[in-house]
């Protein structure tokens, strides 16, 4: 294997968009890199910070409440063009829950205000108002021939525009909008999803997919030594059983 590989992850708004244990995703990427002797540098990007796409291999953004989403909206707009260019250059992105909503074209929040998004995903999110039930619960979805497990808790519903590929297909849970059976979105190497849990620790193959895409882009080779993932698989199975048993 190649020695001395390193990757840089830009963690957008880590102190604001961190609602549901989202730092667990960064911990998972860090641990899975460390196990392969890959040095993962994490750059926190706060409001007002400069983000350098050239130095970035992975962009991560987690979830936040409506008020945090409003708070970051202006700063995100200042980075929106660069984020779309980065996506088009096959830059790897993982956007979870509120971050996923804001990486769409727009999000109409619970007050009816429209927050412009980064436009990474050609999708709109609409909060139907606080009188309408939130989408809350365990989720099982099918991604790339296997199960993804996690938890969702969102008021807004996301609708993918024509031709946009969902990340996964819902088995149980709401997913994007509780209506069309889609969950998340994927464009090139950009992954958007409502699932937290945290998502990556117990979906190790998705975590490795994110890393592989970043390695291919940086080094032309995405080979990763397999890890035992015994404890990871057990947690995945437990969530799967818990979700599907409760679903009936």
């Amino acid at each position, binding site marked *: 294997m190649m020695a001395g590989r390193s990757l840089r992850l830009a963690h957008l708004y880590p102190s604001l968009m961190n609602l*549901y*244990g989202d*730092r667990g995703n960064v*911990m998972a990427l860090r641990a899975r890199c460390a196990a392969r002797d890959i040095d993962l540098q994490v750059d926190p990007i706060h409001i007002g910070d400069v983000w350098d796409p050239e130095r970035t291999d992975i962009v991560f953004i987690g979830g936040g409440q409506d008020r945090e989403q409003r708070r970051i909206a202006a700063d995100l707009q200042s980075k929106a063009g660069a984020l779309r260019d980065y996506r088009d250059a096959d830059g790897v992105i993982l956007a979870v829950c509120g971050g996923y909503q804001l990486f769409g074209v727009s999000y109409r929040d619970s007050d009816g205000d429209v927050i412009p998004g980064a436009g990474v995903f050609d999708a709109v999110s609409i909060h139907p108002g606080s009188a309408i039930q939130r989408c809350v619960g365990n989720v099982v979805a099918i991604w790339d021939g296997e199960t993804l497990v996690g*938890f969702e*808790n969102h*008021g807004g519903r996301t609708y993918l525009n024509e031709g946009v590929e969902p990340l996964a297909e819902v088995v149980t849970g709401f997913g994007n909008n509780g209506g069309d059976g889609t969950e998340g979105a994927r464009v090139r190497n950009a992954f958007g999803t409502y699932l937290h849990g945290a998502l990556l620790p117990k979906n190790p193959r998705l975590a490795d997919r994110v890393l592989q895409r970043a390695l291919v882009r940086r080094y032309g080779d995405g080979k990763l030594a397999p890890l035992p993932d015994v404890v990871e698989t*057990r947690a995945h199975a437990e*969530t799967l059983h*818990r979700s599907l048993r409760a679903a009936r």
Partner: protein
Amino acid sequence: METRTQVAVLAGKLTRAATRRGGHGGTALPGLIAEKIDPAIVRRLGAQLDRSALITGTNGKTTTARMLAGILAADGRRVVHNRAGSNLMRGLASTLIEATRADGRLPAAATGVFEVDEATLPAATAATRPSVLVIGNLLRDQLDRYGEVDAVRDQWLRTIRDLPAATALALNADDPSVATLADEARGRVVLFGVDDPLPSVSDHAAEARWNPTTGADFVYDRVFYAHIGHWRCADGSLQRPTPQVRATAVDRDAADGVAFDLSAEGRTARVRLPLRGLYNVYNALAAAAAARVLGVDLDVAAEALNHTRAAFGRQERLVVEGRPVWLLLGKNPAGLNEALRTLHTPGARHHLLVLLNDRVADGTDVSWIWDTDWEALTPYVQSVVVGGARAADMALRLQYAGFPGADAPVERDIEAALQRALQTLPPDAELTVLPTYTAMLEVRERLGRRAGVPPIWEGA
């Protein structure tokens, strides 16, 4: 009394007698039945109380209510208190029914001390018209149930606007989400807080990062836990108000607890609290602030706090088959982080039983375990047994923290987990149990049976 209320009280008492004979706690069931017969039962019975105190907040309600009830009892008051932690309207109804005598009346001149669920506060204030409302903190908790944290604060604001001017507020000056509620108060406000140059901590799940009214960022000169500390707005528009009830000279490593100087209105008394952790200092301050409103002398309050006994499962110590067992509830990131910090004792090598459930009262979303700081505890851990409905999720979290044996088999069944923890515990070692809420209730029942202590609903 209205016939309907009388019938409801009788039905409640009947229910209580029947469930206890069956060996079940059922602290809320009598109230649930009685409310079906007379939906206004809490208001009707509550009107017979001389005064009452309501205690809400994300964490510390049970312990604060217990401290306040202890202070009032030490002052010679008759207290009606939902001590078993049943804090919805039906729980208040159960408590009032239990206190109702054969003549259908509550004892004369009694003071009600009720912990109240955050979302139940509007109904509880309307029904009881309290003398004092205590709000301890607003922390991230059970987002699957309450929705976003802001919604809880909005509901509190509306409740406070509707309070009569006769109701005093006791608010935590160090939690900006709570301290700023004072703006809406029509009656007296008593603020409490910690005035001590303790070292700052950094929690991953802190809320309240800016002032919701002005949008200015909060900055902290000191963080005590979560987002609680000495805060001010970056633009200078607002700062932590000066508390009237204060803790100074805090000694977090006092023997088997935490000691501090309790000050109010120019007087000071040393408190030696037999519970650990700064979160319990805040609980004691909240109780002391409410006691001030209710006219209790500071020295009486301080002395009563010295004799605080842990509420069930909250730093409760039991002896089970000759083995010391310490039970520390950790139901959300802020509470669990505080519980974990109490275990950072130099030289300690803990034997842990960690129990994670995902029932409604725990929060069905277990992602919060990723916001808790297990890493800092790793050097103090000798062994761990993991149990509960989401044991595998917890084991994965602990593996990330580098705990020894996190890859060992887990026990989803609480009894099996407890048995394994006790069987593998070395002689003379103490077992430290860290459960979520429903796991605590279950493990407490099983430990209590083994230890020969009363079940929680009868605990003194």
